């Protein structure tokens, strides 16, 4: 939903720019019979786009004000709504702070991890995670080497890098022949560079994929169950903020693998860093 909203907003902004830049063209258009209604529709859409952007900023400001006033639950609500509409590293960092101040250790850790997911250069979120894990005595998730590599850059960068390097290499191999140019050394060098970057970024790409299954227990003393049923035998009690990996889903339960055991947990008690896995499983 938030994704669609954002796409719409980007589209509306493009339209706005077009409207502003194409002021000279529009009068001619508007003289036509359909020109005026179309102009009105476009202007309305533009105003909606500006309104949506303004509401995210207003929520961010509201959250900041509530946090400074000590109303952490209201701050968490505002930051959460802002992050749902447009996930942003700063918003998620502030959401984590508000959740932490409200005693929601697990939710705070999820928010900070999401901030790092979007922006691995966010030192404040990284520092907060270290602080929270030390205070709550919980471990950070154990990452494989490809997952560690994937944390070096924002998640989307790896996909673009993989794609661009692949097509660059393909282009450098094919285009000289097609264009009937002599293959120069620099063609081969660029192709080799592209292939190298592609091969190096593939593991990170895979790391992003597997890291998307990492989540954290958001409720204190959450029961890890042997089976996905209400009456299931408990395997262990998980502390808030304890990391685990999502394996699969069944009804209202998720099968997760923690450092201690494999078991089922209620969906509401587990927060994924990247919620797409949870959405896909529904």
């Amino acid at each position: 939903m938030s994704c669609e909203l954002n796409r719409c907003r980007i589209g509306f902004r493009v339209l706005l720019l077009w409207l502003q830049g194409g002021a000279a063209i529009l009068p001619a258009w508007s003289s036509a019979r359909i020109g005026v209604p179309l102009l009105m529709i476009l202007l309305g859409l533009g105003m909606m786009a500006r309104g949506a952007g303004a509401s995210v900023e207003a929520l961010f400001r509201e959250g900041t004000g509530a946090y400074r006033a000590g109303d952490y639950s209201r701050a968490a609500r505002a930051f959460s709504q802002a992050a749902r509409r447009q996930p942003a590293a700063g918003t998620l960092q502030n959401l984590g702070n508000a959740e932490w101040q409200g005693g929601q250790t697990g939710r705070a850790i999820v928010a900070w991890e999401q901030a790092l997911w979007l922006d691995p250069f966010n030192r404040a979120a990284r520092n907060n995670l270290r602080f929270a894990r030390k205070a709550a005595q919980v471990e950070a998730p154990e990452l494989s080497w490809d997952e560690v590599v994937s944390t070096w850059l924002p998640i989307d960068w790896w996909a673009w890098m993989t794609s661009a390097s692949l097509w660059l290499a393909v282009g450098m191999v094919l285009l000289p022949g097609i264009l009937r140019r002599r293959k120069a050394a620099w063609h081969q060098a660029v192709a080799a560079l592209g292939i190298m970057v592609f091969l190096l970024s593939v593991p990170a790409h895979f790391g992003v994929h597997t890291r998307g299954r990492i989540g954290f227990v958001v409720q204190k003393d959450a029961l890890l169950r042997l089976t996905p049923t209400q009456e299931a035998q408990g395997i262990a009690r998980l502390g808030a903020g304890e990391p685990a990996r999502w394996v699969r889903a069944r009804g209202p339960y998720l099968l997760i693998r923690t450092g201690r055991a494999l078991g089922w947990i209620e969906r509401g008690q587990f927060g994924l860093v990247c919620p797409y896995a949870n959405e896909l499983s529904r």
Partner: protein
Amino acid sequence: MALLMSQPKTEIASNVVAVAGFDPPVVRPGEGAVYRVSFNALEESVVWPEKLNAPAELDIRAGGRGQIMPFNGTNFVPLTMFNYHVRAPRLGRFIVPEFTVRVYGKPVTVPAAQLSVAASLPASVASAQGLVFEVPETNLYAGQAVKARVLMGPSSGGQLRTLMQVQINGEGVLVDQGAARQRVGPVRRGASSVVAYIYETVLTPLQTGKVTVFAQGFSAGNRYFGPAVAGVGTGPVPTNLPQFTLLDSEPVELQVRPLPRQGELPGFTGAIGSFSLEPPRLAADPVRVGDAVKLSVTVRGEGNVGRLAAPPPPRVRDWQVFAPTPEPLPPASPMAVMAPQPAVAQASATFVYTLIPLTTAARATPAIPFSYFDPGRAVYVDLTIPEVPVTVQPGAGGADLRALQQPDRGSGESEREPGLSGLAPTPGRAAATLTPVQRRPWFALAQLAPAAVFAGLWGWDRRRRFLEQHPEVVLRRRARRALRRQWRALGRAARAGDARGFADAAVAAMQAGCAPHYPAEPRALVGADVLPMLGGLAGGAAEVARRFFALTDAARFGPGGADARELLALQPDLEKVLQHLEGRL
């Protein structure tokens, strides 16, 4: 083995006797009494009923139950007692009837016992003796230690007896047996002061919510309570032992709250109370790089000192710090025991950290974060162990030390103690969604675009190279196009009745259809060139072609022109000729 065999035996009586009675046997309406049943058997052997068959009018509540093993000179004799607190609402006699329980697997009859409720008590009857259980604070936090005491006053005869095997019963409460103290001292009761037996210990509630606790213990004396009745057919109750009586207290309800999460400080290890630090002491100064030095830290205060967990050692670049070991608490002095006791235990704990300097750059020991929760103010208080200045001199430094001195990844970060950051001033780097771009469907579609472009370019190049090697393909394709173009033109001319245009288009179409076979410029071909191409057709087709060429040549080169109208009638035959020529292309 000999030592084991020399120990006195526990006497397991073959003849178990149950004794039941009320203490006191006579009470006024509304006054309490204790219904007590005792067995000369082990507690585990008695299968006690869940519910007592007592008169419905009696307000009855289960009290303590316990076992004691007095020594009769040769053996230990087990004695088990069950207490019930009873209150009668009106005058009269109330009888708990005889009932049977199983002891050592055999039925034992508990005799009936009678409680008389009278308006006035006989002078010989004293009120029941009980324990007083005092907890100075009942509104506590989970994990907060609180001192509790059990008091036993003198008996009605003024004799002060001892109290044995004192227990504090209640779920979710930890009783620190190591902190137990017993003494005899004055206790204020209203305006007067009485001498009482005092048992003090420290309670720690572990679970939150309402927690009910009470105390019990055996008083040792020679008092004989009530008209005890032995079971029919049993032997006499032994009277050569001191009389032990199980006493218990009224229950006390504790309200236990969880510790607040808000405001928790680094280094909190569960310390609750009020604490202070003595200045940390370093065992040696100066020290050499690689040599271990001990840092003693003493925490004093009121609270759960006995269960104090030391703050974890910090990770710093210049020092290697090992987890501390708590030093044993010093034994309490007699003065301390006799001194007036505060509401919570006062004590101290000393933690000894072992530190190894890794470089001569270290100027002081690292600060160690520590904090405690003050239940009085309901806030966390910082009690960070401060740095201690020290001089570090160069040492021999072995391989182990050099390995420790290697800067590990993130050591720069671990130097700084993490803390909660402030708020981000702006939303910062944003994305449309948290879902990575490679998981979005449009990304896969976007990859198809360059793939399609490259595939198209590659295919176009292949086709281009093929046509370069096979020019006849191009010629035939061009001829086919020209033939069709002229075919359409002659059709239009025929429909318009333009005989001359029809004839020109027909000749041009035949020339275009034959040109690739020679090859030659189509306009250079004459009828004689076309006729060999019509070999497969009937003789009429060649005649049709000849007539078209003859007429157009006559029209082009003849003096007076020619009438081409008759050729319009030959359109069906011409169509066959053109179809034949197109088929050969």
